[in-house]
């Protein structure tokens, strides 16, 4: 096992880089981070559209959310793989394809988290902000979302953890992320599949566990802030 790690650690971490495209764990991390960074604002917009009083905005967004939510990620990946080149007229590389699929898929779930967060607040908050003369969007931005986002934190982290794991589906369109590299290592070594996939599993676990611990810490910091306020 030591020998396995010793031989392949660099390949595992960066793929063929610098003699080929960046891959491995680094690619997984970049894909997951970009996915999160892009999906969050999109999810926020979709979530707000989903509770907006403007039916012309609410209905199409709701329809899209229902369709994507009722579809496995694998299918969204295939869909992106085959239709993006047709839609854009360009050959799309695997990284972009996977990123688009991830962002669309996660944004939809994030939108539902955002919607739930907003709906969990008493209706009086929006009403009261409107009664002061704030516009709907102003009330949303200044009064509702600051409170709702705090409530949403645990669910958001849950979704982020999912995103990390979902990057592994890039495997099926030949994206050289860490699962793909692990499969290649396995083919080359041939005799140690258990060990190879154990290391892969531990790697995902470490990433996800780290993220959820970080979120737990963040949550406690928020709550500590709140309890200091109550004590003061």
């Amino acid at each position: 096992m030591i020998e396995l790690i010793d031989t392949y650690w660099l390949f595992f971490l960066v793929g063929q880089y610098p003699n080929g495209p960046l891959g491995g764990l680094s690619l997984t991390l970049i894909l997951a981070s970009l996915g999160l960074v892009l999906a969050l604002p999109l999810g926020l917009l979709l979530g707000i559209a989903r509770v907006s009083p403007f039916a012309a905005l609410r209905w199409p967004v709701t329809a899209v959310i229902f369709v994507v939510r009722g579809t496995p990620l694998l299918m969204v990946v295939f869909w992106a793989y085959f239709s993006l080149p047709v839609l854009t007229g360009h050959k799309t590389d695997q990284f972009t394809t996977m990123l688009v699929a991830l962002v669309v898929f996660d944004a939809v779930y994030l939108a539902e988290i955002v919607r739930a967060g907003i709906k969990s607040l008493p209706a009086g908050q929006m009403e009261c902000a409107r009664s002061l003369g704030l516009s709907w969007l102003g009330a949303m931005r200044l009064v509702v979302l600051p409170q709702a986002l705090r409530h949403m934190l645990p669910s958001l982290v849950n979704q982020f953890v999912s995103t990390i794991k979902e990057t592994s589906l890039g495997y099926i369109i030949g994206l050289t992320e860490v699962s793909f590299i692990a499969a290649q290592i396995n083919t080359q070594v041939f005799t140690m599949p258990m060990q190879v996939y154990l290391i892969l599993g531990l790697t995902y676990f470490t990433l996800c566990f780290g993220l959820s611990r970080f979120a737990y810490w963040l949550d406690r910091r928020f709550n500590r802030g709140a309890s200091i306020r109550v004590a003061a």
Partner: protein
Amino acid sequence: MIEIEKVNKWFGSYHALVDISESVGKGEVVVVCGPSGSGKSTLIRTLNRLEPIRSGRILIDCHDIHRPGLDINAFRSRIGFVFQQFNLFPHLDVLGNCTLAPIRLRGLKPAEARERALALLDRVGLVHKAHAYPAELSGGQQQRVAIARALAMQPPLMLFDEPTSALDPEMVGEVLAVMRDLARDGMTMVCVTHEMGFAREVADRVIFMDEGRVLERATPDAFFNSPQHPRAQQFLSDIRSPFAGAPG
């Protein structure tokens, strides 16, 4: 200042407001009372369009508040509204609650808004709580902050929707004292309330509602001493001796 003309409102098949016509003059204090479900809260919520209406008109300073295309936000910013549930913004401290709208909507500089808020908090006796968060305040204190927050927009008209109904009895007095003080200063006020002592002392006029209709309008003296409508007589005797009608 307020003209209500033949207003009708339906919740589904339920006729919540039936042909209501009223007017409130500048500086007048009008108390709306009636049993629960009588439509009094619905009525006051139509006055700043928190509830839409089916037919009729509501004019505030000669502007039809339910006219489509009206800049409702600008209008609402000049109508103070105090809710039964206070609805302070829990993520902001007391000062933040009282300065949010003046800064965002009136373009006040933060220092100006702060000064105005502190003066109002002083008026409601809570200047020492300026940096407290809503969760640290009692119900009565929260409602006084809510009144200060509404006043910070310097509205010529204040609407109160059962401002003391969610309070413990010992906190009702402090909120009523603030409202009494406002009335004395000549503020135009419409209050939905069950506080008959307040109505008697402060109101210029009492409106009694039941089942979506105004059944009686009178001066407080006339209303409390010689109510005309049988439903009003019943209501007054119920709230005076709540156990009289109870079975057993």
